[in-house]
């Protein structure tokens, strides 16, 4: 049998085998590259979802706190907001342009970032409130802001260094803006 195997004249030459192996390697390389790109894309997309979720959590937190807040004051030409929380704690939200983060700070406590600094960078933030229609300030509802509008220009990031911008606006109509007196100033 061995002798008949060696005598087989129909075998492939070394060149043919090399060409086949080369073509096969190219095919495997291309397919694996495409597969890796799909995996990379899915990782990037998952990272973006995580970043978007972080933005949603941060903005919802701000929305909830501002909804029950008192005595709102816009700081630094719209780059920050000072107010009193539901429990009358003086609180500040401010933009740190150097580190591109949005800080949330309660009285006597250390500042904490609203968004995860590894996932979300803040390019620009603007806080504005409406102006009252009258000059009288006997009652809180006459001078309390009826709406706070926040403009966000964010950069959401993936762990692989790919970034995309996210520009949107958020408005909050505080519940306490219709009260006769400011409960935090009693």
């Amino acid at each position, binding site marked *: 049998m061995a002798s008949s195997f060696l005598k087989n004249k129909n075998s492939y030459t070394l060149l043919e085998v090399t060409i086949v192996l080369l073509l096969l390697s190219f095919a495997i390389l291309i397919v694996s590259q495409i597969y890796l790109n799909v995996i990379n894309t899915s990782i990037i997309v998952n990272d973006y979802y995580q970043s978007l979720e972080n933005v949603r959590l941060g903005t919802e937190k701000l929305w909830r706190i501002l909804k029950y807040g008192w005595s709102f004051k816009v700081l630094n030409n719209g780059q920050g907001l000072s107010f009193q929380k539901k429990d009358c704690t003086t609180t500040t939200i401010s933009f740190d342009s150097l580190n591109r983060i949005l800080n949330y700070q309660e009285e006597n406590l250390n500042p904490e970032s609203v968004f995860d600094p590894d996932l979300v960078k803040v390019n620009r933030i603007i806080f504005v409130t409406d102006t009252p229609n009258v000059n009288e300030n006997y009652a809180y509802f006459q001078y309390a802001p009826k709406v706070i509008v926040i403009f966000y220009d964010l950069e959401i990031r993936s762990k692989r260094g790919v970034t995309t911008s*996210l520009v949107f606006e958020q408005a909050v109509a505080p519940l306490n803006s*219709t009260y006769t007196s400011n409960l935090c100033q009693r």
Partner: protein
Amino acid sequence: MKSKGASFGEIMIVFLIISVALIVFLRITSDYLKSLVFVKEFFILNSLLQSKYQLLIAYRNKALERPFGGETIQTAVWPSFPNNFCIDFDASTGKINVNSASTCEFKLINGLRLNYATYTISSAPFNDYYIFSIRAYDRLRRISSEIENIYITKWHPAF
């Protein structure tokens, strides 16, 4: 003598398999990216819808800002048009503006306009309240988002 070369049919089958594999891979990648774009756009549209919803509440509450001497329960000054209108916040004046229009552009407070997205507010007036529906539409991606049946009373008591 039997030919060693591949037949035309065999080559076509190989090309077909490679093409299908490529299409499947590219489709998966494209779907991933599309889903990301859609999620981002929905996030923006929903934030803007929520913002309009809050502006409607704020606009109603503005009716309380009147000089003393009047009633404590005030009727909100809603526009006389019954159906569609736009509501925007003008950051330079600090006023909430309401204008009659059937389709509205999103104007952000820094002057940016989202030209690819529009919104409509439809209202149904009743004696004591309005029912609003806000619908945002993204013309580029052909997606829309809506908040329906927002009941807002025409007045607000001062607590």
